[in-house]
């Protein structure tokens, strides 16, 4: 009898365990993004989260939308209180729109603060308001210079000798004379030429309390420098208007320009779209401004946020912390996406040195170079009117400078005025 009871009990226990296991329905989360590449990281982190038996199983429904469409659907969903996802990628230029009024995003101080000292916090300040953090970026987006060493060598220039922007301009003149090629291109329809330089120089479009800084001397001087390079042909407008244009890729790949200044995440544009330059491109710090400024700037990006009204708020936050703030997650932003991780600790890790298409293309010294910049990257002021300022830069400032040939003072004044009009 006792034996029978024991057997029955064991059976019951086993059944119970089985049903408990079988009953474990994965928690469903929705994630919205506009950049399909990010989903590669998310899928990987979802799988490895689920692989850990201590974690409740999750199932993330990832929806990719066209850029404008996603942001407008998000606004609508947050406004109407219905249909919003749990986790969402919001591009940096749009983020401020969601920090207005009654903020519908969850504050994530509880997952960020504990590891503050390991992170490049200027990235987090972009997505913060009143001391609360709302978004996590996948990269620093440190601005660097990409040099085509083949062209430079033909002109007798060693890229490592270029220390300041004046050195850069002088080198450009030599390159133009000896090879007939411009030193670089400035974007005429996007902000990645102007904003990094202005920010590195110490300027910005707005102060944290909403005052317009667009017409400060530092901005005018930066624009004047850029114009001086346009005037003598050492810089030209990017073909197609911006550095993501098909025409630009084609020409740069064909060796038309000696260098380009872009944020770190631009690494994979070269590997994916300009394969002929493999082994010829080198990355280096941006030249420095002789009258003060910083070593670099942090540009672009996407803040991944959690929606406050999510039904699975805690799990969503925990998974997000795992995907983007854990050691493993940060390493993977490099190995999968080719981004510069926001966790400084990661840079010494052996996984970061494993051969991949980037080391093959640029050489092994990418991170040695990058590490030197991390201590001097300024904040950017992503206040409520930053999106409007950004639009003005992309559509008027860049265009007037590069195509319109307007002088720096006038451009700064008129754009600043336009921004002030918007703020009213």
């Amino acid at each position, binding site marked *: 009898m006792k034996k029978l009871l024991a057997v029955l009990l064991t059976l019951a226990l086993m059944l119970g365990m089985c049903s408990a296991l079988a009953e474990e329905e994965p928690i469903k989360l929705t994630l919205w993004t*506009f*950049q*399909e590449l990010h*989903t590669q990281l998310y899928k990987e982190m979802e799988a490895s989260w689920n692989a850990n038996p201590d974690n409740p199983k999750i199932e993330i429904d990832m*929806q*990719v*939308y*066209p*850029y404008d*469409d996603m942001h407008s*659907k998000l606004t*609508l969903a947050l406004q*109407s209180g219905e*249909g919003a996802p749990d986790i969402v990628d919001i591009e940096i230029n749009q983020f401020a729109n969601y920090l207005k009024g009654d903020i519908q995003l969850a504050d994530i101080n509880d997952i960020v603060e504990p590891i503050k000292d390991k992170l490049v916090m200027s990235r987090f300040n972009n997505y913060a308001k009143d001391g609360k953090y709302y978004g996590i970026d996948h990269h620093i987006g440190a601005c660097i210079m990409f040099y085509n060493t083949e062209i430079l060598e033909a002109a007798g220039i060693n890229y490592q000798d270029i220390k300041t922007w004046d050195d850069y301009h002088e080198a450009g003149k030599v390159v133009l004379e000896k090879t007939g090629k411009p030193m670089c291109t400035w974007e005429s329809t*996007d902000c990645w030429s102007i904003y990094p330089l202005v920010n590195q120089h110490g300027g910005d479009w707005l102060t944290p309390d909403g005052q317009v800084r667009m017409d400060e001397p530092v901005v005018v001087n930066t624009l004047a420098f850029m114009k001086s390079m346009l005037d003598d042909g050492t810089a030209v407008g990017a073909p197609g208007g911006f550095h*993501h244009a*098909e*025409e630009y*890729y*084609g020409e740069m*790949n*064909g060796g038309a320009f000696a260098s380009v200044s872009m944020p770190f*995440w631009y690494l994979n*544009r070269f590997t*994916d*779209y*300009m*394969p*002929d330059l493999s082994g010829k491109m080198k990355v280096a710090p941006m030249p420095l401004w002789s009258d003060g400024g910083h070593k670099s700037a942090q540009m672009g990006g996407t803040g991944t946020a959690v929606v406050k009204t999510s039904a699975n708020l805690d799990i969503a936050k925990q998974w997000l912390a795992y995907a983007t703030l854990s050691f493993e997650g940060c390493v993977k932003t490099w190995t999968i996406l080719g981004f510069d991780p926001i966790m400084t600790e990661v840079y010494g890790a052996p996984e970061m040195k494993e051969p991949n298409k980037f080391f093959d293309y640029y050489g092994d010294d990418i991170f040695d170079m990058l590490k030197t910049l991390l201590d001097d990257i300024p904040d950017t002021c992503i206040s409520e009117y930053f999106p409007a300022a950004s639009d003005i830069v992309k559509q008027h400032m860049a265009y007037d400078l590069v195509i319109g040939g307007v002088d720096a003072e006038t451009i700064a004044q008129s754009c600043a005025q336009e921004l002030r009009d918007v703020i009213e």
Partner: protein
Amino acid sequence: MKMKKHFNKRKAMLSFLATGLMIIWACVAMLPFAFMFCSSLKPGEEMLRKGLSLTIEPGVSSFSNYNALNTYRDGIYWHWYKSSVIIMVLQTVIGLFFGSMVGYGLAMYNFKGRNLIFTLVLIVMMIPFEILLLPLYRMLIRTKMTDNYFGVVLPYLVPPFMIFFFRQYVLGLPKELLEAGRIDGCTDYGVFFRIMVPIMIPAFGAMTILSGMNSWNNLLWPMIVLSSNEKFTIPIGMGTTITPYGNAYDVLMPGAVMAVVPIIIIYLCAQKTFIAGLTAGSVKG
């Protein structure tokens, strides 16, 4: 005698010029397709390297790019395809049903308010859909019809251009048929469905192609209404491959070719009916 020879020579030269002009435009018309097709065979970077090129290089070109349609995000492209087809069929079938009915009614019968309604149709044809966008969208949100195929098709159910066209076409049909049908004991509806519709086939053919074409390439409204990735139509889906930070050319080009080839085939098969329909319908314009 001399005059005729001179005239023939002149005619021959004009004919040569005229045909030449047509050939030039035919090349212009087909060039983008040729480019699309050639690019779809090459990996994305090739297209960027050479820009607009019409070469088919043996080593580089292959149909392997088309496999990207299966692998990209687990073959979501085919969901887009299915969506586009469903919406196109829904929109066209329902549109044809109502459009033909209204057009027929306006042409066959003389009744009070007939001119008023036709004028309304004309006015409606002149209103840009884009200004109705926002209120319609809010309406859909309130009635929970977003992310729904019917929500996408709703504004197109009784298409004014079809009403206009069917009316013109039916004006050219003999009214005696209606009388004959009635004498035979049919209701007017019976006459419409059993006698008139078969006669109106060319018109249906023309409108099918125009409606199908509109629906297949429609971007704005479906994008606003739909929010699930699987329900996206092809134009929306292709839109997701174009970001401010780069495009997925490997999917874009084969995707575009796959999207257009079936339509072209359907068109080539149906064009006799289509052109006959358009021709007859515009006669009494």
